[in-house]
């Protein structure tokens, strides 16, 4: 084959699709990105056109590969990472979606989920998930209930279900498969057997005939028309865990965007959470046993900075939060609990609402900016404490990625609050990188996970600077502020 060889990864996200090409050192060779429409038919409903997404994906792959002078023959593998839980139903014969995809954020299944309350323990034990509108199972059920004739077609196997990975692999290779990480977000898969569970299917009323075959995250699923092996699929947060090379139990990554997602590798046994975290599959490489993870999400982190910019006008760009927070030495006694739509893990209090506590005449906008950054750090601390308690492991360092890692002050506060070093990796596009790594492993481009670890380099590291007494005092104050956010909203 001519020239050097590369691995490509598709990152099919909530607002856009990207394709990145990586070399053997894990460096980015080219990037292409295309947005797709967000469809909001009613309040609380969010949809995507799966056909439009497929077109966008084809476009970005062509642009990233041939547009940068690479021949498809130089691609040894293609990996996929995707927005999780978003649900696509399509006709096996025409290849057309039978409805718009229901996006993970969509809350139309709220009432449906409440009717499932009697099965809550079953879902917790078998699927590792709480009852919530995010997951794919209730979305499938909703479409089957609301679309005339659809259930019969699904039972005959004429209509197929897939999360976005499955939809793209079907279009690329013609095979109807999904990977274990995406399947673990449906509420239909048994976490231990890694197969569809009849009791879960019955509880949700989803026919088995429409479901894809569950496969490992890294293996060759098939080849594209251009002869490129499609060799990996991972949900986006799991891909970030993989891209951060968190291959050992206790290794933890946190991705800081509008919200934040922490995943901790817990090894080859699923750990049931007693502290409101999710149990999920981290990844499965070929025939090897699956690696599990605990997941905690924080609803409001980066979006609080945006709120300060857009709703209060205290800053004109998100990066300026650091400048404003840098005008003061500390928070001036001020704490900001951004419970805009309740508190997530580990509290799970939908009655909570945002509060700014500890205000005095002394407090300036600089103190509030600082409290905003500290809110992200303390929320991370609460999730980390829950993970440590559930897993019986102690976090020794946190691998951070995402846009907010450009904020030095936030990263320092995070290290101070967690009392462990916070590390930013050289390649901040860990999601794409993780999918590329998995695909490269499946095809022998990289021999083993050790060779991937050798590619991982620290771009920066922040070490804790404050004393334990200060940390303890601040944590106490934060928890007092949390208490004051509770019992506010009445349903």
């Amino acid at each position, binding site marked *: 084959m001519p020239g050097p060889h590369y691995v490509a990864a598709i990152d099919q996200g909530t607002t856009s699709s990207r394709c990145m090409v990586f070399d053997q050192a894990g460096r980015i060779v080219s990037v292409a990105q295309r947005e797709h429409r967000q469809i909001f038919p009613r309040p609380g409903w969010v949809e995507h056109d799966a056909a439009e997404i497929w077109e966008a994906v084809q476009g970005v792959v062509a642009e990233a590969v041939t547009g940068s002078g690479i021949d498809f023959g130089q691609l040894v593998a293609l990996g996929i990472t995707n927005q999780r839980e978003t649900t696509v139903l399509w006709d096996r014969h025409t290849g057309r979606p039978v409805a718009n995809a229901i996006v993970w954020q969509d809350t139309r299944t709220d009432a449906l989920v409440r009717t499932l309350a009697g099965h809550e323990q079953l879902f917790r034990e078998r699927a590792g998930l709480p009852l919530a509108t995010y997951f794919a199972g209730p979305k499938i059920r909703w479409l089957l209930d609301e679309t005339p004739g659809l259930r019969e077609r699904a039972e005959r196997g004429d209509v197929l279900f897939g999360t976005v990975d499955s939809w793209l692999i079907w279009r690329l290779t013609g095979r109807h498969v999904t990977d274990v990480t995406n399947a673990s977000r449906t509420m239909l898969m048994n976490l231990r057997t890694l197969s569809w569970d009849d009791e879960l299917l019955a509880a949700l009323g989803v026919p088995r005939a429409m479901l894809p075959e569950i496969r490992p995250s890294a293996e060759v699923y098939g080849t594209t028309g251009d002869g490129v092996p499609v060799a990996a699929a991972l949900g986006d947060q799991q891909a970030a865990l993989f891209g951060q090379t968190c291959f050992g139990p206790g290794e933890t990554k946190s991705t800081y965007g509008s919200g934040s997602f922490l995943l901790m590798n817990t090894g080859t046994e699923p750990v049931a959470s007693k502290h409101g975290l999710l149990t999920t599959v981290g990844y499965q490489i070929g025939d090897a046993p699956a690696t599990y993870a605990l997941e905690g999400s924080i609803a409001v982190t980066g979006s609080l900075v945006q709120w300060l910019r857009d709703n209060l006008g205290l800053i004109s760009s998100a990066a300026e939060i*650091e400048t404003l927070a840098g005008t003061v030495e500390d928070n001036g006694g001020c704490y900001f609990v951004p419970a805009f739509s309740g508190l997530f893990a580990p509290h799970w209090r939908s009655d909570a609402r945002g509060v700014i506590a500890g205000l005095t005449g002394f407090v300036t906008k600089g103190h509030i900016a600082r409290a905003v950054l500290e809110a992200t750090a303390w929320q991370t601390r609460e999730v980390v404490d829950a993970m440590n308690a559930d897993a019986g492991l102690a976090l020794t360092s946190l691998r951070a990625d995402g846009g907010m890692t450009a904020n030095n002050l936030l990263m320092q506060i995070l290290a101070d609050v967690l009392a462990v070093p916070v590390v930013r990796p050289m390649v*901040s596009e860990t999601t794409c990188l993780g999918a590329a790594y998995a695909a490269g492993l499946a095809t022998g481009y990289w021999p083993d996970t050790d060779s991937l670890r050798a590619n991982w380099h620290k771009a920066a590291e922040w070490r804790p600077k404050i004393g334990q007494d200060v940390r303890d005092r601040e944590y106490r104050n934060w928890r007092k502020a949390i208490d004051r956010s509770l019992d506010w909203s009445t349903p």
Partner: protein
Amino acid sequence: MWGVGETIQSVERAAGILRLLASGPRELGVAELARAMGLPKGTLHGILRTLVHVGFVEQDAATGRYRLGGTLLHLGSSYLDVNVLRTRSLNWTDALAGRSRESVWIGTAHEGGVLVVHHVFRPDDSMQVLQVGTLLPAHATALGKVLLAYDPYGDAGAAFHAPSATQSAASPGTPSATAPGAALSATPGTAASATAPEAAPGATPGMPSATAPGATAGGEPAVEGLAAFTPRTLTRADDLAKELELVRGRGWACDVEELVEGEVSIAAPIRDARGVTVGAIGVRGAVERLAEGGEPSITIVSYVRDAARAITRDLSR
């Protein structure tokens, strides 16, 4: 009325006060300002009151001393929030570290030195300490030479007068653009003191108490002119002026063992949409990797310039 070539005295005096306040790390009291300007305190009070009123100057509530106001900082065309600069540069600096296999630095002009606003570790997993917030000497680093050579004020500007150079800063005469180094003439040891971590007010509280490369070496007082860190440091103003001319001619700068023995740095300018240099990006590493026969590696120079151009393009969007 006044004719062409005439100037308004009170505006000149206001400008002189602003230059003084911009030149040092300390806030200044009325007495010090009056002495430096050669003006009676009463005259000075009037001008200061006006400058405070328009937000160009702030008075410290506790000490009563004066400093530059936030309004003024946002006014200058070259002003770009350093945290915005870091955010916009992040992907490009990582890519440069990956290509060059060296540590990457972004600096901006600050109080006679170079304030490190972003630092990416050399990707070899060796022990490295984040140096964000450190102040480096301008004349002995590639970052500093770039910032001096492309100083938007054309006179090695107020921001670049070392603290002890305030007297010359106060004089209304503008140094000739062809000899920008002259304005840098500092008393011995000035640049060395600038490397002390506590001299970096831009440093984020809680940051590692960074020590500048070479700070331990100290600045050997030169007989006249700029502080020497190694035998190769440019210590004479006219040598530096010649060097800056070269930097402007080729569009990049280097220091070959001028700050630390055995280390080379290479840098290029980052410009905003108007073409004003708002920062410099560069790499620093061992002389055997970054130089060939005493000359900086052209491959690395091209990587640095690519990254600088990419960030410049990004900033103009």
